[in-house]
């Protein structure tokens, strides 16, 4: 073998290396570019382990909104006032404003489905599953005002939510179609570079996206993307598809913040006990006054 072919090989390898390094530094347009390369787990994946929490008011309303007196309103003499059941809460029951987390701020309901959203809002106290401490579903679990913890090993990803002790297995190997519908759906994950992509399906039709009556059918599919954008931040994206309810897919995006409190841990929020008076109070032998 002569010396020239070796030199050609070496040049090609160097050029390839240079191109690779250059691509890693320059953000690729169109991906909401991040230049951050997350620390790796011992098996070489971006490390999502830790405590995370959304800090926004998406759980009240995923769309942009100004503050309002309460979730449950009734006609007052000069405009809406809190409904009788919530007026005693005063400002504690008021709804804070939000910049909105929905891309282009539009939720594309089919015309006949928009009416159902309004019905949900008008009957919020009876219909919002959060009030009954029911499992929050996906993506609502992510932006409940409680922390959650991501556990990542070489074989699985698991998320434990403080709210109602909700849990999700993210299967890194697709187990096939979900055998039965569930509140939290069945999650299948894969890595795309720096991003954990999770496809969630097999939902029932019982959860909402927020307190504002945004809902779905059992045909819902959610695609989540978790991407570290810095030492203490994740960019969270969720694409919602439900051909029975929406005319097209729509997407929410928000940062997730690492909870860096000393000795941080999830505490119990077993709200099932807290809603017993609400759900079973009227069935007591001696009901309390309501």
């Amino acid at each position, binding site marked *: *073998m002569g010396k020239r072919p070796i030199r050609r090989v070496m040049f090609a390898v160097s050029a390839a290396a240079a191109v690779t390094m250059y691509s890693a530094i320059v953000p690729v347009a169109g991906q909401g570019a991040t230049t951050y390369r997350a620390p790796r*787990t*011992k*098996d070489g994946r971006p490390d999502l*382990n830790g405590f995370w929490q959304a800090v926004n008011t998406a759980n009240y309303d995923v769309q942009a909104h100004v503050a309002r007196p309460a979730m449950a309103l009734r006609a007052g003499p000069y405009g809406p006032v809190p409904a009788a059941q919530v007026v005693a809460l005063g400002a504690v029951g008021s709804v804070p404003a939000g910049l909105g987390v929905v891309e282009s701020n539009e939720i594309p309901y089919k015309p006949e489905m928009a009416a159902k959203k309004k019905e949900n809002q008008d009957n919020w106290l009876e219909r919002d599953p959060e009030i009954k*401490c*029911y*499992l929050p579903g996906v993506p609502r679990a992510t932006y409940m005002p409680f922390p959650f*913890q991501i*556990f*990542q*090993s*070489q*074989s*699985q990803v*698991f998320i*434990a939510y403080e709210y109602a*002790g*909700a*849990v999700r*297995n993210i*299967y890194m190997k697709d*187990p096939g179609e979900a*055998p*039965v519908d*569930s*509140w*939290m759906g069945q999650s299948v994950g894969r890595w795309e570079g720096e991003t954990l992509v999770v496809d969630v399906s097999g939902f029932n039709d*019982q959860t909402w996206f927020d307190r504002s009556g945004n809902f779905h059918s059992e045909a819902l599919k959610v695609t989540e993307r978790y991407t570290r954008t810095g030492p203490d931040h994740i960019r969270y994206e969720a694409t919602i598809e439900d051909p029975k309810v929406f005319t097209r897919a729509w997407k929410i995006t928000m940062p997730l913040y690492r909870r860096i409190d000393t*000795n941080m*841990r*999830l*505490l*119990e929020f*077993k709200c*099932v*006990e807290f809603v*017993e008076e609400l*759900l*079973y109070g009227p*069935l*007591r*032998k*001696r009901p309390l006054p309501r």
Partner: protein
Amino acid sequence: MCPQRYRVTAWLPLLLVFSFAVVATVAQDVAKPRTPWGDPDLQGTWDYWTFTPLERPAEFAGREVLTKEEASQLAEKLHKGAVTERFVAGDTGAYSQEVWTDRGDKVTALTQTSIIIDPRDGKLPPMTPDAAKKAEAHKAAGGHPVRNRSNGVGTDDPEDRGVAERCLLGFSTGPPMLPGGYNNNVQIIQSPGYVVLLLEMNHDARIIPIDKSPRAQGNLRQWLGDSRGHWEGDTLVVRTTNFTDKTASFALTAFAVGSAEHLTLIERFKRSDANTLQYEFTVDDPSTFTRPFTGRLPMNRTDNLIYEYACHEGNYGLTNMLSSARAQDRSAAERK
């Protein structure tokens, strides 16, 4: 230029030694797998059903161990008994063990004669005199809080029912975990510094930090307590305290002893082979029992997935128990 030819005879013994080392390493990894960060790997879904009872039955008094034949005969006998039982509940038809419970289709028993291995008689130690007095007083005063998992003290209020009927905890998930009617599954997830025990019932994730961080300030008490873990060789040792008084010191599906406020629970998990996890627990509560006691049972690896146990979301049972009791109250009042 032609490549050099190496002398085959020099390489061969080295190759053999190398292959042997690789095979030996792989064999060791299969039996004692490690996570990428070096902890023993206990991950997977584990099924802890067995017919073996908690306490040693009278027929095996004095015997700690059965032969394998005796164990499988025992399992067959108990299985047959289970599937020929028919609980006939009014017009709703028979409640089939085969369909609903693990007694119906998992015919396994251990060679231990009881899950309790210490004390050596395989029995629960007695309650302290003080605990026995408290239990009497508790019962005389109406039995609240009801610490049983199932079976309550009445149907006047939801608080009259067992904590599992109220979907607050699982039927026999304790802790410690013990075989119950169904859903005898736990999934173990690990990440650096944590082990998670996902109890199928009631989708409860027991999160165990593997560190010496202090317990939360304020002596906070929780339904599932506050756990810390550490490794002793290949064994995960979990120490849990800070339970509330709303659960028993020790409970199975149908009975509950004492209150958990002063309970220190030690659990040990060790992989005994690729498909078996050895689980051992020690209940140490001097305010309830005269001495600590220890149980041991294997958990068997399963490829089945843990399903969502949305207990509260589907809790028609509690609604129906209370509303039917109110209907009975009304007809009794009308008859007067």
